[in-house]
């Protein structure tokens, strides 16, 4: 019995060891996003609270905590309250399988990549629940838009994952990283990396695909009726999801925790730091796109997902499989 208890306590300890840095990182990443966005537009961005404005997110969080939570009279109360909780939880539980180095991973499960994919496809429920339970026009429209958008782009992300899996021969995330020791998958699968990046933008409802919350049309989409800490939870969940997509991209294509060159000065850097650097690089790309590109029209968005990305990635699956088969490079016999 005490043995079981010990296991339980160490697991909980590990979970907190992972969760607290991630929550802090999410807060910092919001600041970074606003900073990058501002620099592209020749503004200063948040620079008042703390050094370089680093504590801006902290101040925002304090503000959200002390604001009143308003629940609309006609809302479906249970689902209205559940929606931000679902978004936040789903954004955080997927971090359990992300490997930060060869032995620094909370749950090294056999179907890691499927788990990530499943959890990110569940993310749509937080948005639908929030939009429906608000019982108001704008949130509902936003929820329906985002559901259609996320379901469409999941398809192409799934097919891209198949591309990578063909080269690896395992669904385990650690195996996926170790398979890239000689060559990162971004080199042979570069077009897939581009499509993955754009689909990840659409999957996380980032600009230029932020139609679910297009402020010019739908006020704030599914978040319109939310206030106080519940709004902040939606917000944190969204950014945690973006970070997750960045880490998924760096694990699938950029070699995870591996250093770019296996030489002396690079090997001194600890493995988790490489993964963090790659995630940051992808995230800065995300926020650059937000600052540069105008919003897509909805039919263009659907056309891009179904008529361009899906056929392209399917063709690439056929190409990859044929290449591996012809040159006898298949990882599993």
């Amino acid at each position, binding site marked *: 019995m005490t043995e*079981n208890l010990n296991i339980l306590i160490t697991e909980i300890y590990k979970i907190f060891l992972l969760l607290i840095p991630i929550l802090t990182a999410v807060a910092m990443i919001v600041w970074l996003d606003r900073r990058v966005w501002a620099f592209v537009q020749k503004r200063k961005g948040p620079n008042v609270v703390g050094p370089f404005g680093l504590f801006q997110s902290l101040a925002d969080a304090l503000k959200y905590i002390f604001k009143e939570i308003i629940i609309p009279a006609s809302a*479906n109360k249970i*689902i209205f309250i559940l929606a931000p909780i679902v978004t936040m939880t789903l954004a955080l539980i997927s971090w359990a399988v992300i490997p930060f180095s060869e032995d620094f991973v909370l749950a090294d*499960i*056999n*179907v890691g990549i*499927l*788990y990530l*994919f*499943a959890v990110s*496809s*569940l993310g*749509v*429920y937080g948005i*639908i*629940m929030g939009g*429906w339970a608000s019982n108001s026009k704008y949130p*509902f429209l936003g929820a*329906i838009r985002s*559901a259609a958008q996320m*379901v469409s782009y*999941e398809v192409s992300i*799934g097919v891209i994952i198949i591309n990578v899996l063909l080269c690896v021969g*395992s*669904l385990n995330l650690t195996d996926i990283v170790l398979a890239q020791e000689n060559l990162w998958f971004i080199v042979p699968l570069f077009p897939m990396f581009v499509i993955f990046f754009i689909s990840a933008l659409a999957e996380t409802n980032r600009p230029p695909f932020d139609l679910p919350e297009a402020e010019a049309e739908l006020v704030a989409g599914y978040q319109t009726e939310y206030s106080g800490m519940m709004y902040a939870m939606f917000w944190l969940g969204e950014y945690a999801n973006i970070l997750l997509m960045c880490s998924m991209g760096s694990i699938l294509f950029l070699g995870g925790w591996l250093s770019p060159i296996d030489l002396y000065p690079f090997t001194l850097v600890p493995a988790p730091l490489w993964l963090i650097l790659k995630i940051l690089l992808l995230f800065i790309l995300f926020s650059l796109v937000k600052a540069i590109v105008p919003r897509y029209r909805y*039919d*263009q968005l659907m056309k891009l997902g179904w008529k361009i990305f899906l056929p392209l990635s399917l063709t690439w699956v056929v190409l990859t499989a044929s290449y591996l088969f012809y040159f006898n490079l298949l990882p*599993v016999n």
Partner: protein
Amino acid sequence: MIIHSIFFYIFSIIAVFSAIMVTVSRNTVHSVFFLILDFITISCLFIMIGAEFIGMIMLIVYVGAVAVLFLFVVMMLNVSKQKNEWLGNEKNSNHIPIGLLISGVIFFELIIVVGGWKYKPELLKSFSSIGIDTSTTNTHEIGKVLYTDYIHLFHLSGMVLLVAMIGAIVLTFRQREGIKRQSYFRQISRERNEAVELADPKNNEGVKIDV
């Protein structure tokens, strides 16, 4: 082991409870949410018995795609009209015997299968000719069986799905007239002399614009 059974009972209680709530719940959207909860707990049970691939695929296919469409359809319906017409109404209660019959048949089948598995395990092994290799992951194992022994059935089910998909598109597709479509190719390949025209409008007549 004790933790294992505690988790099993937690998941199965949630699964049974949500399965009952799917039918009992008055609000249709709530029933769909309970259905989703049921799917999730069932996939947790799958993972607990070591079938992690099936559990994850269930989560991706049913919860990530099918239930979203359910939710779509149900949210569009007028939910308030359907209250209180279910069990209490005499006109609608003639489906109860059929429902009882079907659930009775399913229950009987389950008892046969579970009883056979519990008391004569060697009988079930004689049905399947393939030996299961426990040293590799079950994803590999499913792949090996699915793409060798059952490749024709696998192709056939893919064909059935393809035909169903084409059928659904044919049934719902309608060509709409008079809508303006955007053609990137035509937009980009437009030249100045096609697009700009110098006109000399007369007074009180203006220019004719073709749409």
